[in-house]
């Protein structure tokens, strides 16, 4: 194994929230190490003053000066983790500005996070894994074309997807709700192979992603097992044919949401949220169920409705559903209710997550929820931009995994 990826830690309050060890453990789990950029008091005074954000907390001053040391190259790092206490306004300003500053002035991948005393290494793991992937696998992530015959499997929290690609074309797909991780995976693999008219022996390389990536990776003896942040970014810019320059990828998933600011297909800054189910695909599923329709019908229905007509004053999945029930009882149309549900999810993602990254056009929406037109429309209205939904967008993770796995086809031939 190569040397550990060195992640510069720019945090305020981690030790005192009791989560420093969780940060260190999450890094260690992906063969990385966190470290504090070393600076002198004189560096600190000069760099803090020149940055110009005059915060009062000494540890935030230190964080600012350390960020400058990274950007100027005085201290070397492979990636940056910015963290501060949840609910601290002073630190939130610093976090946002530093994230932007590092993103604009260096190629260092950055993830920012606001923690509480409840934050665990498990929560931070995917973020750390993405940071190390970007740092370690830049060459792999640079791949723009799929070659050979490869398979990608995305084991998500709600659904499992499989894609088979041959010479840059998708030739087989499979899609199943995730029930038992391995069984669902077997079903989608079987379906995709059948559609492609191939057998497992024809597959030259396999990539897995999503929550169940480790388990199915082992099961399928995969060449590539990778978190969904980098895989989805890659899949999104590939399918949207936007592999060069900036883009923003939004993936509203069943359990958590990803917002990724991408440059040349490689994530620069990203967030993953999963605190409230009210901002997830799950809420839309519940809405569809309450309206007595299939989830696939929710999008077209929402397109006919006016969300503003329905009072929605809660972001919680329980109380949000209650609002919808009340609205239906009060005579709102199913169209309006569907539109309101879409707007609610979009607004929550917008308010809680998109603030954490720099939105740069084009905005690409992917994942199963991107097929719900009402949700895409609501997001477009909030962001004041036309949103791209590429073909096969529900297979984004599987496609990204199949694309990246083809990097292993050539290696095997050698």
């Amino acid at each position, binding site marked *: 194994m190569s040397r550990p990826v*060195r992640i510069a830690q720019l945090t305020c309050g981690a030790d005192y929230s009791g989560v420093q060890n969780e940060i260190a453990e999450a890094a260690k789990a992906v063969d990385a*190490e966190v*470290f*504090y950029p*070393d600076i002198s008091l004189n560096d600190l005074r000069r760099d803090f003053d020149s940055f110009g954000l005059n915060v009062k907390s000494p540890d935030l001053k*230190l964080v600012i000066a350390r960020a400058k040391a990274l950007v100027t190259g005085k201290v070397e790092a492979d990636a940056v983790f910015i963290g501060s206490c949840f609910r601290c306004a002073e630190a939130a300003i610093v976090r946002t500005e530093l994230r932007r500053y590092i993103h604009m002035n260096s190629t260092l991948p950055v993830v920012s996070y606001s923690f509480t005393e409840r934050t665990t290494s498990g929560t931070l793991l995917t973020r750390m894994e993405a940071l190390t992937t970007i740092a370690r696998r830049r060459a792999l992530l640079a791949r723009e074309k799929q070659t050979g015959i490869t398979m990608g499997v995305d084991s998500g929290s709600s659904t499992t997807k499989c894609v088979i690609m041959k010479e840059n074309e998708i030739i087989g797909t499979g899609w199943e709700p995730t029930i038992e991780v391995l069984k669902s995976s077997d079903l989608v693999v079987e379906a995709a192979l059948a559609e492609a008219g191939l057998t497992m022996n024809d597959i030259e390389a396999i990539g897995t992603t999503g929550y169940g990536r480790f388990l199915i990776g082992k099961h399928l003896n995969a060449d590539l097992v990778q978190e969904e942040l980098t895989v989805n970014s890659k899949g999104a810019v590939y399918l949207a044919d936007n592999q060069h320059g900036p883009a923003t990828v939004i993936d509203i998933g069943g359990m958590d949401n990803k917002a990724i600011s991408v440059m040349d297909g490689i994530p620069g800054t990203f967030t993953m949220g999963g605190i409230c189910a009210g901002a997830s695909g799950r809420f839309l599923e519940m809405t569809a169920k309450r309206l007595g329709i299939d989830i696939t019908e929710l999008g077209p229905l929402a397109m006919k409705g006016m969300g503003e007509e329905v009072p929605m004053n809660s972001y919680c999945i329980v109380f949000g559903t209650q609002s919808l029930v009340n609205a239906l009882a009060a005579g709102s149309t199913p169209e309006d209710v569907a539109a309101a549900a879409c707007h609610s999810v979009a607004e929550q993602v917008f308010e809680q997550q998109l603030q954490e990254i720099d939105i740069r056009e084009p905005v690409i929406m992917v994942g199963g929820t991107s097929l719900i037109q009402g949700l895409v429309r609501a997001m477009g209205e909030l962001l004041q931009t036309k949103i791209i939904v590429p073909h096969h967008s529900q297979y984004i993770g599987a496609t990204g995994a199949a694309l990246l796995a083809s990097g292993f086809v050539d290696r095997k031939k050698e």
Partner: protein
Amino acid sequence: MKEYNPEYVGTETKYIFVDSPTTTPQDLAIAAYEVAMGVMIKETCFGVQVTGTPDEVRRIVERLRKIDPFHIFIKDRGFPPGDERRCRANLGGSRPGYLGHEYEIGLSRFISHGLKETDTMKPEDLKKTAQPFKREPPLDIEELASIIEEEA
């Protein structure tokens, strides 16, 4: 979560800083070893750290302070010396407290001067020299109004 079994329970660690034209950190370390009698002494770039029972540490600290009383500064430390949780080698950079000490040591010459000058002062002279912390009160609103009128 792993269980934690602390080491050095019941001990105290003190930092002894020296910033003096005549005494070097090395002088301090040599003197400390002379009186150590088995107590743990660790040399550092700024002086020494002493770790032992409170009585042992007190004995050594009192002896060391006498070497150069106006230029030696002592404080408690939470960690035992060389603790890898605090060690620069393991963190990639200095622990945050280091910069705070760097700042205060930069002011030590003024305090050393103060210690020397006040050393032989009698309590009443000390009282006269002492000045309570004062901030300029904000400008009275009526005074401000009159200035504006005058300037107008």
